[in-house]
């Protein structure tokens, strides 16, 4: 105890130079956890049933994050602030630390997480009003916020892993918030197990890195990678294993199947966890350990190709959904794939820039969808329509979000998406050196353009089906209260302006001080490339308008025939996983290794007679004690 405090003081002295706010950035993840304690024990006694505690704590964290971001930005980046305390020692030279690594990436993530969390908590005042587990809901949101911030600030892989698993369990708890209905708890379990499948290689990857570098500390690992102390084979293996975790968390093919089902949770949760923050943890992980990936072209190519494949796959699925939240879920998978692909072609800053802008407009779209669902009591777009008249605020903000996502300048999505496409194109054209293969760059560019078209199309379809035409549902929908439309307008404002953070050619631009990846390139604008992507986006919107402006009796996509059937059935992936993997393992493999027979014999050891257990225990202790003293 005393030792920890002393270590703390020592670290403090070195962090003093960084200034008060940057030096004490650990307060940002700590505050939501304090709020959790207060909410759990005293939440129900507050007038707001604990909600105000969570909002207050997150507000302070948000304020600190903004101050840190601004001071760092004004200072042109500034040094990486490192601080850590020894948590507990393991053996002679090993030990687990609890520390912070505050750089441009961390400050950006801080602002994204705290802003979305704060807005979602305010929004939930209206959306979750009268919910039976209202207080617990706020506690869970705050556990999530604290864990995600811990993941972001972590200076060592074990601390990162703790945050990683905690956000996973929060996701499980919140997807299953209304667990009384079977589909919801099924979705929660599916999300947990699917992401866990990716976590196993992730954990092994952490240990591979540890075995090679003899430390969990991210900064030291990166130093060793840059000094060339680690072999190429080790780094490739570690990067590919770590990417397994990112695939699970960020819902990339083949583990993307959990994210659409996760929409069973409350909509604000989808906005916070399954659009803006937790699902970006995989992207963050790759960005955080980018030097490890950069050292291995094979791993980078894998990241890029998985990204390219997933973005197209998911965008196609988003076209045929009727559930508005599922449209957005597949869209999220597709956009996360954009970020992955950007990292894969070596454009780390562009990927993080897209993460930054995507957080605003996707959270906006989810919250807007929540507002619509709140009004019409249905998730299905076939029961919506004409809501433009009833919900003007929701309509306008949703439209801003859609246009931002579709990539029309000057809204946020355009800048980041275009930067990714430009970088991919330049890698493909070999005008800039790349760690991965130039061919992969071309593939990413080509698929990215197609996906941009599809994105514009499905968002146009969603807007028309939801807000235009005649109302097809029951009752008379009404606009949501100010606690819900307020956050929508804030996010709409951010979606309008956030893109200028990465204005091409601006020396102090976004990428210059986030600094993911070794050399920082000032993004260039190529008018031809911009023209191509804008035309493609406009074409997508136009096609959506042509097909859905007047709601057709028969969905025009049905003309795609068998392909439509394939899409509606999600490429039969769920069926394949069930019949091809789960059942064979459950039935055949377990029969082959004799689980049943072996268990039938071994169970007789469990006689239930405690005295027989005790006899075995004492006999074992006596024999072991004898052996230990003898040898």
């Amino acid at each position, binding site marked *: 105890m005393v030792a920890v405090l002393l270590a703390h003081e020592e670290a403090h002295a070195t962090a003093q130079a960084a200034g008060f706010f940057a030096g004490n950035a650990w307060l940002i993840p700590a505050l939501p956890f304090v709020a959790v304690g207060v909410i759990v024990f005293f939440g129900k006694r507050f007038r707001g049933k604990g909600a105000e505690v969570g909002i207050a704590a997150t507000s302070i964290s948000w304020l600190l994050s903004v101050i840190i971001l601004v001071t760092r930005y004004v200072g042109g980046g500034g040094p990486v602030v490192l601080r850590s305390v020894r948590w507990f020692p393991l053996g002679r030279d090993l030990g687990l630390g609890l520390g912070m690594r505050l750089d441009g990436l961390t400050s950006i993530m801080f602002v994204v997480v705290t802003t979305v969390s704060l807005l979602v908590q305010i929004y939930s005042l209206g959306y979750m009003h009268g919910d039976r587990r209202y207080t617990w809901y706020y506690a869970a949101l705050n556990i999530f916020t604290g864990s995600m911030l811990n993941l972001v600030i972590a200076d060592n892989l074990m601390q990162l892993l703790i945050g990683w698993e905690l956000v996973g369990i929060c996701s499980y708890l919140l997807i299953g918030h209304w667990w009384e209905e079977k589909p919801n708890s099924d979705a929660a379990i599916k999300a947990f197990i699917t992401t866990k499948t990716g976590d196993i290689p992730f954990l092994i990857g952490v240990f591979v890195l540890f075995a090679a570098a003899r430390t969990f500390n991210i900064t030291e690992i990166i130093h060793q990678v840059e000094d060339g102390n680690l072999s190429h084979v080790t780094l490739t293996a570690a990067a590919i294993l770590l990417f397994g975790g990112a695939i699970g968390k960020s819902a990339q093919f083949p583990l993307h199947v959990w994210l659409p089902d996760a929409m069973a949770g409350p909509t604000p949760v989808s906005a916070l966890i399954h659009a803006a923050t937790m699902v970006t943890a995989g992207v963050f992980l790759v960005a955080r350990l980018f030097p490890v990936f950069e050292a291995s072209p094979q791993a980078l190519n894998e990241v890029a190709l998985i990204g390219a494949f997933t973005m197209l796959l998911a965008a196609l699925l988003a076209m045929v959904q009727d559930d508005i939240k599922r449209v957005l879920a597949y869209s999220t998978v597709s956009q996360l794939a954009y970020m992955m692909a950007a990292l894969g072609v070596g454009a780390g800053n562009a990927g993080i820039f897209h993460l930054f802008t995507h957080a605003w407009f996707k959270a906006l779209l989810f919250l807007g969808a929540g507002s619509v669902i709140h009004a019409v009591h249905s998730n299905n777009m076939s029961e919506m329509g004409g809501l433009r008249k009833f919900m003007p605020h929701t309509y306008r903000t949703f439209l801003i979000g859609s246009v931002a996502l579709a990539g029309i300048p000057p809204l946020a999505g355009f800048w980041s998406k275009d930067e990714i496409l430009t970088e991919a194109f330049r890698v493909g054209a070999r005008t800039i050196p790349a760690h991965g293969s130039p061919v992969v760059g071309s593939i990413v560019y080509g698929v990215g353009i197609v996906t941009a078209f599809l994105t514009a199309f499905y968002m146009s379809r969603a807007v028309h089906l939801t807000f235009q035409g005649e109302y097809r549902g029951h009752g008379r929908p009404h606009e949501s209260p100010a606690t819900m439309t307020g956050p929508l307008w804030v996010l709409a404002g951010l979606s309008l302006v956030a893109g200028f953070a990465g204005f091409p050619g601006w020396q102090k631009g976004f990428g210059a001080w986030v600094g993911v990846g070794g050399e920082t390139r000032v993004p260039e604008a190529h008018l031809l490339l911009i023209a191509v992507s804008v035309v493609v986006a406009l074409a997508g919107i136009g096609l959506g308008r042509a097909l859905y402006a007047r709601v057709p009796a028969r969905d025009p996509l049905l003309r795609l025939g068998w392909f439509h059937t394939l899409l509606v059935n999600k490429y039969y992936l769920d069926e394949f996983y069930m019949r091809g993997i789960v059942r064979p393992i459950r039935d055949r493999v377990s029969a082959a290794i004799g689980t049943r027979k072996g268990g039938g014999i071994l169970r007789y050891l469990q006689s239930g007679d405690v*005295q027989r257990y005790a006899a075995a225990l*004492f006999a074992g202790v*006596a024999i072991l*004690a004898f052996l230990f003293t003898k040898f």
Partner: protein
Amino acid sequence: MTGQEMAFLALGAIAAAGGVAVVTARNVVHGALFLVAVLAAIGALFLLLGAEFVGWVQILIYVGAIVVLLLFGLMLTKAPLGRGALDNQQRGIAAIVATGTFAMLTWLVWHAFGDERITFVRAVRTADIGNALFTSYVLPFEAVSVLLLAALVGAILLAKKD
């Protein structure tokens, strides 16, 4: 052989014989009474070794409280009499394990401390114990008091008729 050694042998013999009687008694109440003899002999042994306070605590708490509690338990559960009713079927295994443990421990003890001797010095004063308890060991002391409280609450909760 000094007087202290003779006293130890006498007390040790009482304790050992009592211990054997406790685990083989055919009447549960007799078993409890033999336990009193063992515990009292051990308490006297503590006095002999200069641990006055612990010796009296041993007699007060064990003989005065714990054995009485065990007797209450016996009365409230109308235990039957006789070897078959009191012993289970694995007496042989139990004997082997116990003998093995005894052999191992004895071998270990003589192996490690065969030559060491306890030289007789003055008894530890109760004041010293109190001093140590409330300075160096105040944290474990508090922890144990919390444990006792928890056990008290737990025992009431378990045993009360609902």
